[in-house]
């Protein structure tokens, strides 16, 4: 005989000491994954990566003479540099992955991470519990960074591994420093971008406005950058453009910065990006601290 | 002025396929009338129809003998309305907001200011006149809503949950204001969820349920109409088992519940007779307290609208 009424019960099970941002991170990842477009973007990136793996295998193993072929084509075309699967190609690949992912992921996923909590007042539910504004922010930001990296760093590393596994030993020297470079570059960009989007959303308190402002900053920034560059002839003006900065950061860290003139000085670019990150972080902490005061 | 303050005839309103209010016939002369009902029972719909914010799907409303329809500005002059929704003039100071409304009402300069000062004084907000609405607590905003409703001292005042969110001093002040207001032959329709406060201020009620009129009139009359329900007396005291045995043997009761040793609930169809009998027992000093709860508004409300799930 058993009887169980819908009555309040005390909890006697275990309580773990894991940090409070961990469940927040997993819940945020789930939330992202439940969005159809976020899923599509991630899958498309990964599938592209897989496609390139196959390509690397084909080039390295099936037609290993392709280097001579390309050299010959290069000579015929009058190109000075020989085309090979080195750091520069990886830089090019990196940009191929980063640009289609950054903006959509920010617009589809990052934009309402915090502003939705502000709208439904979830922050009040969170901060009355054992979680501090800093660990709240950590959980949310890590989730966003995680998606960005999964859709960019993931396929890149796949390609690199495929390339490394299928090519001859001496090729490894050319691509040895690539993984560290792309990891550093992408992590830096992802963190800055995550903080930036969330800071905008804390300021506007609305997902829609965040998206609008974010698009405007992205596009308008790029347009303004080239206009100002043309007007003042000061190449550092280009650092207003986030897209430009993303490229310079990647190129600089991978040590493949083209020696053309129309790129801002990496020092300036890093200062601007770090500045954006730090200011965003301060805005976020200030907003969240205020929210943690409840009521 | 013999025309009733409010008269509705077959008043109905649908929102698409959602029924807001159906076939309401009530007439209200003057005094305070409590408007009661669960959420979604049609109170707000009625308020909107009375203030000419929406058209009736069927039937009509007369305010002091004049048909009330949206855009019928003449009738707008005779009523003040404090809606249940929040106000949204966030950046205005309280006094500026009221002044704007006074001017919209046709007053100018000094006389408008005069009205605003008077209204603020009556709700006890004079010290807060310069506070911006967005900086105000919920209770303060509620009071500003009441202030704008009484700005022109209209003969008919419609208040939708005015006490919601107010702290106890403001509650009492607002209820005093309503009581005082209705003493001067004016009409106040007060919608509220807090029954004991309605109970304290008026006996005249309109109860809505599922968009229909459930009951209208004096509380005691409404109670007397509910015949099926036995009435209940609760006594506390000593030696209650004997009392219970005695009453049972005389076949006066339709029900009896013992709660512990010292509390007895007695259900009966003829309350007066039971009370007389209890009086006799009480004279011997056995009864400490006696209560008949069904004269109370919450008991009647419970009977009509349905048990409060405990």
């Amino acid at each position, binding site marked *: 005989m058993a009887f169980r009424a819908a009555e*309040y019960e005390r*909890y006697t099970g275990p309580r773990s000491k894991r940090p409070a941002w961990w469940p927040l991170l997993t819940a945020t990842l789930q*939330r992202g994954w439940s969005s159809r477009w976020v899923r599509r973007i991630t899958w498309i990136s990964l599938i592209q990566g897989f496609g390139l793996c196959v390509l690397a295998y084909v080039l390295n193993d099936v037609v290993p003479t392709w280097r001579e072929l390309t050299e010959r084509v290069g000579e015929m075309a009058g190109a000075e540099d020989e085309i090979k699967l080195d750091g520069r190609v990886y830089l090019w690949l990196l940009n191929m992955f980063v640009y289609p992912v950054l903006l959509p992921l920010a617009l589809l996923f990052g934009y309402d991470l915090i502003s939705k909590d502000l709208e*439904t007042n*979830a922050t009040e539910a969170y*901060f009355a519990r054992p979680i501090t504004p800093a660990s709240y922010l950590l959980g949310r930001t890590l989730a966003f960074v995680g998606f960005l990296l999964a859709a960019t760093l993931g396929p890149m590393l796949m390609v690199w591994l495929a390339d490394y596994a299928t090519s001859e030993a001496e090729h490894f020297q050319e691509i040895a420093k690539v993984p560290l470079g792309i990891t550093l570059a992408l992590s830096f960009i992802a963190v800055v971008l995550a903080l930036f989007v969330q800071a905008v959303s804390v300021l506007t308190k609305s997902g829609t406005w965040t998206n609008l402002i974010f698009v405007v900053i992205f596009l308008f920034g790029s347009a303004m950058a080239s206009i100002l560059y043309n007007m003042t002839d000061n190449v550092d003006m280009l650092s207003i453009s986030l897209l430009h900065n993303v490229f310079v950061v990647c190129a600089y860290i991978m040590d493949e910065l083209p020696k053309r003139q129309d790129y801002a000085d990496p020092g300036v670019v890093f200062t601007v990006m770090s500045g954006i990150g730090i200011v965003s972080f301060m805005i976020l902490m200030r907003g969240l601290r205020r929210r943690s005061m409840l009521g | 002025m013999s025309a009733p303050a409010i008269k509705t005839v077959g008043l109905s309103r649908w929102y698409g396929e959602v029924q807001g209010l159906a076939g309401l016939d009530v007439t209200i002369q003057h005094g305070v009338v409590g408007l009661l009902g669960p959420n979604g029972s049609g109170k707000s719909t009625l308020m909107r129809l009375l203030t000419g914010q929406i058209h009736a799907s069927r039937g009509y409303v007369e305010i002091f003998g004049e048909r009330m329809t949206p855009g019928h500005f003449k009738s707008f002059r005779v009523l003040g309305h404090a809606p249940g929704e929040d106000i949204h003039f966030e950046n205005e100071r309280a006094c500026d907001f009221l002044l704007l409304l006074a001017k919209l009402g046709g007053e100018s300069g000094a006389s408008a200011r005069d009205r605003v000062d008077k209204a603020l004084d009556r709700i006890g907000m004079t010290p807060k006149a310069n506070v911006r609405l967005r900086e105000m607590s919920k209770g303060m905003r509620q009071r500003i809503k009441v202030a704008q409703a009484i700005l022109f001292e209209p003969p008919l005042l419609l208040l939708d949950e005015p006490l919601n969110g107010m702290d106890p001093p403001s509650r*009492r002040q607002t209820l005093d204001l309503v009581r005082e207001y209705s003493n001067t032959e004016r009409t106040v329709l007060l919608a509220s969820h807090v029954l004991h406060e309605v109970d304290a201020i008026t006996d005249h009620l309109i109860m809505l349920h599922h968009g229909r009129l459930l009951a209208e009139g004096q509380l005691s009359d409404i109670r007397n109409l509910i015949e099926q329900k036995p009435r209940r007396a609760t006594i506390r005291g000593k030696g209650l088992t004997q009392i219970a045995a005695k009453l049972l043997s005389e076949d006066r009761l339709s029900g009896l519940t013992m709660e512990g040793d010292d509390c007895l609930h007695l259900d009966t169809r003829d309350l007066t007779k039971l009370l007389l009998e209890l009086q006799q027992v009480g004279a011997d000093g056995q009864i400490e307290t006696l209560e008949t709860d069904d004269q109370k508004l919450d008991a009647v409300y419970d009977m009509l609208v*349905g048990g409060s*799930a405990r």
Partner: protein
Amino acid sequence: MSAPIIALDGLLVRYGKFTALHGVDAIFSGGSLGLLGPNGAGKSTMLRSILGLVRPTAGTAQVLGVDARKSGTELRRRIGYMPERDAYIGGFSAVRGLAHLAEICGFPKDDAMLRAHDVLHFVGLGEERYREVSTFSTGMRQRYKLAAALVHDPEVLFLDEPTNGLDPQSRARMLGLIERITKDHGLHLVLASHLLHDVERLCQEVWVMEGGKMRLSGSISDLTAAARGARRVTIANDQGAAFHAAAEAAGFACSREGDGRSFVVHHEDRVVEPDEIFRLAQNNQMVITSIRPAARSLEDAFLEVLEGE
């Protein structure tokens, strides 16, 4: 159970130049406490100090024997807070949101989900578990917030205006739930409410605050017992005036209340016994519909405290 549930010692909180709490001393040793005060009395600041969210300028707030500021995070595992405004996790179903909040409090994933289901059943939202909270009605939202405050099985429960905006049925239901949790399961309750009837029903103690100061702390029965010895009597319909006259003639002081049918009867030198009143009514062929000790209502007591500047 030696340490008091809440002990405030000279708690002083300043925000810039504004002083929200002027050195409050108070002790709540357990049971149910009503936190009363007009808007802006410092109730929210006190709540923040107790949850360890604000650093006191001076003094300490100890909760469950622990300093709230030093170990606020640990303390918030043991406290359930129900905010006044709606608060829920958007985009999650009701049960998923609650489980998530329990996980934040350190529940393992599976236990959190089980617990979320149980608590929702308890507050009567079992049928609506898988719906999103944004589709809930006012009454359901209030119960959901209560469930959220309970989901991590706290030892102390802070409820801020839990019956605000509820219709009479939902209000009775909410009060019933709170009563069950505190009476049957021994959770300590701190209830901030403007509806003094609710406080009277649920709490044994009150703290009355005004202007950042503790105006009064004590048990409700002491507060409302000022008129001990007097009785409140209600008479059947139109016999009020006659009763008044008869009582005065019999040597009682009799004051009439609001509706003309109820009276407070007292005697200058002694306690008024119910049998005297019953006999009085019998002799004058009147029907008494109620008789009970004339306690002051909490509302009267509260307003008196505020006015007694």
